[in-house]
């Protein structure tokens, strides 16, 4: 695996294939990647308004989906941000959102490649 790739869990993708075949995996990836930029933008907007609850909600949802799809680093970053937001600590959230923004294209590339391999 390329050193720049995110920390990922290929077993999570195998598990989803076992649950529902390539179609489930592909459909879940599509839904996740569609929602991903919206969730990050919404979290950043919440941070801009100083609304910790909005940030917490978006990062919690992102944490859950990222874990199910094996995007481990995105999961950990989301969890870290969720806990900060839950504690009402806005300091540090901007850095985490920056890290998540940087993580997005890597996760997108990894999941897209995984689905392409499945359908090949």
């Amino acid at each position: 695996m390329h050193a720049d790739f995110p920390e990922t869990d290929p077993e999570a993708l195998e598990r989803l294939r076992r649950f529902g075949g390539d179609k489930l995996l592909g459909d879940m990836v599509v839904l996740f990647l569609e929602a991903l930029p919206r969730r990050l933008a919404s979290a950043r907007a919440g941070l801009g308004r100083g609304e910790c609850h909005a940030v917490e909600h978006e990062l919690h949802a992102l944490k859950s989906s990222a874990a199910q799809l094996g995007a481990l680093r995105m999961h950990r970053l989301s969890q870290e941000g969720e806990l900060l937001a839950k504690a009402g600590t806005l300091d540090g959230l901007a850095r985490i959102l920056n890290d998540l923004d940087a993580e997005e294209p890597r996760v997108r590339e990894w999941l897209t490649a995984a689905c392409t391999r499945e359908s090949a």
Partner: protein
Amino acid sequence: MTLIAVVEDNADNRLLLHALLGGDYDIVEYENGTDALAGLHTARPDVVLLDISLPGMDGNEILDHIRADEDLRSLPVIALTAHAMMGDREKYLAAGFDDYVTKPIVDETILMEAIERGLERRR
């Protein structure tokens, strides 16, 4: 056929639950608490899978409404949540959930067994 109500705002999670449960159960889905509380009266499910972090009313508030409703209060309600820190299980069971299953779903038998326990309570 047994009917499972899924209250979950994440579309990818709803898709996963449909894949896991759709072969064995009928499923009715709600994306938020308002729709769920209105729909449960009509749908009359056998078990409810209830996410905690939802827009608007959260899962705890929805559960409170269910338990306060004479028609719904006996429904088995399973917390299906990514809140999986130490003590969360006890917290949600103490709040009145019948069972607690964490996301991500790694071992589907844990979910299936929780549903079966809920159905046993219903019988």
